[in-house]
């Protein structure tokens, strides 16, 4: 038995084939071909999924707007250009494509009677791990925050993610005064309407939220004040109402 095995092993050892030289043209060609095919597959799936992904994004934004502005049934998009707010309709198309950054957009929300409820303002800044993307509802008349949602966050699971999972923390944003400035306090120590009770174990994330809100209000207060709100009308023919999920992608 042993001998046989040894012989077999020897046989195997001797028949190891010597690699034939392959011309570099063949190597380059086969890799190029692989790259070409892979490129076609990737571009194909990109083109196929892009509209769906964009629709998802728009849909998520729409839902968030309706969430942070309670009672909101429709909204118009406003763009910030050179410190001034410009309505979506009056916005030249060429420029719109040049400025597509989300930070330059706010949304004015209206209730069923066409009355302006407030503005939904997206804001993003670094948190504990990565950028925290948020959107909040702002009541311009009373200068209070009336709703807050986290759109994007990689905060520590179980600790920092309480900024959007903790019900007590969310209560802070029911009616939060922004004058003179939002301030952090310890849990249970809230005395004035401009204070946020931070989360134990997630101080940095809580404070990041406060910083995001304060900076966004600093940025948007002036353009919104300057803007003549009486000119704003709820959308009529356009699709930014609650039951128009399909139309929004056409508008954008």
């Amino acid at each position, binding site marked *: 038995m042993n001998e046989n095995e040894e012989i077999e092993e020897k046989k195997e050892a001797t028949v190891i084939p010597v*690699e034939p030289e*392959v011309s570099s043209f*063949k*190597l380059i060609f*086969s*890799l190029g071909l*692989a*790259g070409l*095919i*892979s490129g076609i*597959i*990737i571009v194909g*799936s*990109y083109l*196929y*999924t892009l509209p*769906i*992904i964009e629709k*998802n*994004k728009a849909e*998520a934004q729409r839902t968030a707007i309706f969430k942070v502005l309670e009672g909101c049934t429709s909204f118009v998009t406003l763009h910030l250009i050179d410190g001034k707010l410009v309505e979506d309709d009056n916005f030249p198309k060429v420029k719109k494509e040049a400025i597509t950054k989300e930070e330059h957009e706010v949304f004015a929300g209206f209730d069923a009677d066409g009355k302006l409820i407030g503005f939904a303002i997206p804001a993003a800044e670094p948190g504990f791990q990565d950028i925290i993307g948020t959107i909040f509802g702002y009541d311009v008349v009373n200068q209070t925050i009336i709703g807050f949602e986290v759109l*994007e966050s*990689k905060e*520590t*699971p*179980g*600790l920092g993610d309480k900024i959007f999972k903790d019900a007590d923390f969310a209560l802070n944003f029911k009616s939060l005064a922004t004058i003179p400035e939002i301030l952090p306090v310890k849990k249970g120590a809230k005395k004035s309407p401009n204070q946020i009770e931070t989360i134990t174990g997630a101080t940095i994330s809580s404070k990041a939220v406060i910083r995001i809100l304060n900076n966004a209000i600093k940025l948007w207060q002036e353009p919104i004040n300057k803007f003549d709100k009486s000119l704003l009308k709820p959308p009529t023919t356009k699709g930014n109402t609650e039951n128009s999920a399909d139309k929004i992608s056409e508008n954008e």
Partner: protein
Amino acid sequence: MSEKETDKKAQEFLKGLWKENPVFVAVLGMCPALAVTNSAINSLAMGLATTFVLVCSSILVSSLRKVIPKQVRITAYVIIIATFVTVVDFALAAFTPSIQKELGAFVALIVVNCLILGRQEAFASKNGVVLSIFDAAGMSLGFTFALLCIGVIREVIGSGSLFDFPLFGAGYEPWVVMILPPGGFFALGFLLFGFNWYAGRKRKKELVKA
């Protein structure tokens, strides 16, 4: 199809599930096994994404095994794998955006999962398409099973829920550490311990029998 062939296919399929489980036995693909298993649903999504990539690239690699020159085979494998990973990434973003957000960069990192490259080099490049499919499916389902084990343990202990469904009521104080990075090592360590203990006991029994 002869019985022997069916037997071989079953064997190639089953070995990945248990005897050569990529996580518990071969200890491959540790990066996703530790990083994204903080909830059962994330584990399942990662497992299925890996399954898709592994099966598809095995099919392609094994059907092209005679065309791809030996000298550039690894590069070719990486191109093939990366293509399918990109497709998976787009698909996740389109159809399950919340999961894609949670998995983040780890979807893209499937490219460098040594489990996948390892199967191409060790199996798909040397065997026919059908056998390669069975091998890839077995290996990746074994991987999914292992990730799910870790994910279930971590979510149940760390968040007190399973597939986001609360289990213990409000009185339960979750062990947050289990869904933080150390929890991944704890869960994996205990699972490896259990797996090896069981395998060792089985081996002993067989030895006694013999």
